[in-house]
């Protein structure tokens, strides 16, 4: 197989693009996809500081790598979830990356912020661990960005993540979740920073290949709590569809973004207020993070 651009031996085939690339041309393709995402959705400019949420996995470190090389002003944020050896190893990957690229990295511990690490939150709430974990991460990303004076948080969500989330929402007709699913969510309140996903045009396999070719040392193992997670089952189903019809994931997600999402956005308008306790944005009196924190403190 030959590179579509230069004719050298290809290292990766992208069936959905009917293309194959050598290592340098694939990396350029990858960067172009990120540039296009940032441009199309006006995600951020080179004058704005960008908080990049990093987990130690391939996606977030690949994203940070590209943004640094593109000349953006980035600071990493690692949220230590306190999930045993997994958190120790993933934190180490982020620290090593930041040191190697000489970029700033902030670290916040969920245990300090919520009152307990994710494994204890799981026991206290008796809900799936990803529930309290995701809630804490979204809250802390926003709060840290505000505290640090950064107008935007970038996460490493890729095409597969977005397609699997959409699949899950549609399977249960969670119509309230649909307008929130976007490559770029604008700040709709002074205490809500912009949230962007510059990798949404790139598949999981493409981000893994980029991280490998860039020799980024990332954590291959997944969080122990993710075993059996519904999102992984949904990704499996979508990959079988992709295998039968290349481009299936892309068409599913991009068709939604182009054609369906605007309709749900009109129906599901919400009013945002400030939490009576912490002042962060919520739709009720107390925000979900403060409620979780209360629940944890009561049980300890």
């Amino acid at each position, binding site marked *: 197989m030959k590179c579509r651009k230069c004719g050298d031996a290809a290292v990766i085939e992208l069936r959905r693009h009917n293309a194959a690339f050598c290592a340098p041309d694939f990396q350029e393709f990858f960067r172009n996809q990120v540039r296009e995402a940032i441009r199309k959705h006006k995600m951020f400019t080179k004058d704005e500081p960008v908080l990049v949420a990093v987990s130690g996995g391939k996606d977030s470190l690949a994203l940070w790598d590209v943004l640094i090389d593109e000349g953006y002003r980035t600071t990493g944020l690692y949220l230590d979830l306190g999930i045993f050896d997994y958190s120790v190893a993933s934190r180490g990957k982020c620290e090593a990356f930041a040191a190697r690229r000489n970029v700033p990295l902030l670290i916040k511990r969920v245990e300090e912020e919520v009152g307990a690490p994710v494994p204890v939150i799981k026991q206290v709430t008796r809900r799936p661990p990803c529930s309290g974990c995701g809630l804490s991460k979204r809250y802390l990303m926003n709060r840290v960005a505000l505290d640090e004076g950064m107008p935007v948080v970038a996460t490493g969500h890729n095409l597969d993540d977005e397609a699997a989330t959409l699949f899950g929402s549609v399977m249960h007709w969670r119509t309230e979740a649909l307008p929130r699913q976007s490559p770029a969510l604008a700040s709709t309140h002074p205490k809500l920073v912009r949230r962007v996903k510059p990798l949404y045009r790139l598949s999981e396999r493409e981000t893994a290949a980029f991280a490998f070719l860039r020799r980024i040392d990332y954590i291959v*193992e997944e969080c122990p709590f993710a075993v059996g997670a519904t999102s992984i089952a949904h990704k499996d189903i979508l990959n079988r569809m992709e295998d039968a019809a290349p481009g299936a994931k892309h068409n599913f997600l991009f068709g939604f973004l182009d054609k369906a999402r605007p309709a749900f956005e009109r129906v599901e308008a919400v009013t945002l207020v400030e939490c009576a306790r912490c002042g962060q944005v919520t739709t009720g009196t107390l925000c979900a993070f403060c409620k979780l924190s209360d629940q944890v403190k009561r049980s300890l």
Partner: protein
Amino acid sequence: MKVVLRNPRREVEVAGNRRVKDVLRELDIIPETVLVIRGDDLITADQHVKDDDTIELRPVMSGGRA
């Protein structure tokens, strides 16, 4: 030839002297879900692997198996 699989890490022996896509088919692995690594390089599914080759099939999904 030797194939290294991940999560959990393990090794299996399969016949070589054929294309990567034939090896993937035998192991019932969807090409979209793995990187195929030989030495320090990525290789495409149409490439031939020899009997004395070692390849790693690294799942691209966090938490994915291969």
